[in-house]
């Protein structure tokens, strides 16, 4: 077994797992199981980023999505105690067909833009140190300083606004 087939097998297992868990998110009736599938999906995607030399991106994915956002998701789902969605079953109507059609069109559009440039690559790989934290930090605090600060202020305004909305008395 050469290194290339090994890598391909590893990628196949990760990507297959990620795709299967993505299907699980919509296939399960139970909201908690769907959320767990989403967690698994995010985690496997993070490992995929690792294999592509984008360590910082992968770790950020785990910290932000798996570790924080999905925990809050689960928290809310458990707090509302959502069971299987019996009530939400709808009869067949035209909306479903239209949704599938739109989905196929969207997939085709996005795919036609993304796939052709990737056709030539067999093993895409960034140079070593491309996604290292010091490179990303340097880029963020020199080249993209203004957008970074703008996003920071936006988030701060968002937090203050949500506190104002949520608290009756300050």
């Amino acid at each position, binding site marked *: 077994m050469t290194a290339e087939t090994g890598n391909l097998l590893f990628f196949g297992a990760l990507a297959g797992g990620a795709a299967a868990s993505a299907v699980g998110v919509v296939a399960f009736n*139970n909201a*908690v199981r769907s959320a*767990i599938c989403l967690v698994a999906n995010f985690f496997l995607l993070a490992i995929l980023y690792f294999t592509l030399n984008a360590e*910082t991106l992968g770790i950020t994915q*785990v910290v932000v999505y*798996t*570790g924080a956002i999905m*925990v809050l998701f*689960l928290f809310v789902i458990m707090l509302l105690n959502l069971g299987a969605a019996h009530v939400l079953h709808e009869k067949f109507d035209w909306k479903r067909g239209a949704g599938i059609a739109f989905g196929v069109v969207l997939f085709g559009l996005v795919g036609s833009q993304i796939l052709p440039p990737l056709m030539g690559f067999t093993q895409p790989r960034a140079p070593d140190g491309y996604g290292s934290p*010091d490179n990303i930090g340097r880029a963020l605090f020199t080249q993209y300083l203004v957008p970074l600060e703008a996003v920071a202020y936006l988030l701060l305004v968002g937090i203050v606004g949500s506190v104002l909305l949520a608290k009756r008395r300050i």
Partner: protein
Amino acid sequence: MVAWVESLHPIWQALIRVLLLVLPVLLMVPGAIWYERRLLGWFQDRIGPNRVGNITVSRRNRFAPDFLKGRKFNLFGLIQPIADGIKLFIKEDLMPAKADRLIFVAAPALALFPAFTLGATIPWGPIQALTPVADVNVGLLYILAISSLGVYGVVLSGYASNNKYSLLGGLRSSAQLISYELGMGLALGSIVLAVGSLKMTDMVRAQEGPLWGFVGPLANWHLFTPYGFLAAIIFFICMVAETNRAPFDLPEAENELVAGYHTEYSSMKFAVFFMGEYAAMLVYGGIFMTVFAGGWHLVPIRWDWIAEQAPPLAYLAGGFATWDYWLAPLTMIAKCVLVLTVYIWLRATLPRLRYDQLMALGWKSLMPLAVANLILVAAWILVERLTGNPFYGFLFLLVGVGLVVLFYRQFRSVLRGPGSDLPRREVELVNYAKPASSETSEGVPA
């Protein structure tokens, strides 16, 4: 041996490194449980488990050789955890009828997973071929990421048990872990800023420099720098909260929630939760020591500097440095046990926090302090670069940290909001014989 390991295929090398991390932690867990029970017994003025494994060979035993007859062997109860393990193995494994079966079984495994993967970037010694498992350039972020996964085991076990107490335990735990992760990340952030790297081996290397930048013979352990001291205290409190230990063990508060998230778990599933908790405590000890207290070095003394400055002592200093180098794994284990001791000490000393106190401590005390510390470290780096003299930088830091702590003490009640500092009420004991008058005169409230 190191050369032999380096000659192997990378997959075998990785496997060896993983085993060198996981096996010692796994083997230390029963020891840690025994240690906690003995130490708690000592704190509470009782004996603790000291009987299991004491063997007395009878004088009339026909099968024992002569020199063993009538001898007593005392193992100080060290076999107690193994006896507990056997007991848990042969207990009935119950599962509630309406539990979510798949998640109920998966939750203990999810609780154990972060405890063992957490240590993958900690160097347990100086030899790069054997430790850490992966010296990635996002080492500290990796630890934060994996520690944030610790919630899932608790939350999912709480949900899957289909029990109100378990669910409440899980909810409490998720709120607690999210709250304390912030303080933890910010406390570590100040150290990252000072070191200039996220690599754990770089953390250890940065702490080999001279103390405060100008004291030659002592090493610059972050615990002894003003900003590092503050960060270490914040990190330690957050660490105790992250491992769900007393006084932050609200997810399993016995008086309110039976046993919290593991109420419905029995037999080996419960044992797995237990194991995960102790493994996490040990590994967090390793993280604390690596980031704040010099990693695998035993004492904060720079032997190479001494050898350079005082040639007569060179032989002695060289000897100490060699010992320091080869005893590194033992030093690390001893340091982990030291942190474990503080964990147990806290458990024996402090009562459990109320829920609002927990939230107030995390959000209104630790986070502002950590943010102030972060800003201070950034300013210190600026001052040191402008003046080019580490002594002025140290003075600035000393004054800065002093001001931050003073400010915090002065405005603590404002930070925490009204009603946080309740007046102390005297408790009247029922059926309590009043102490003799000589004692009451010494300030004991009558």
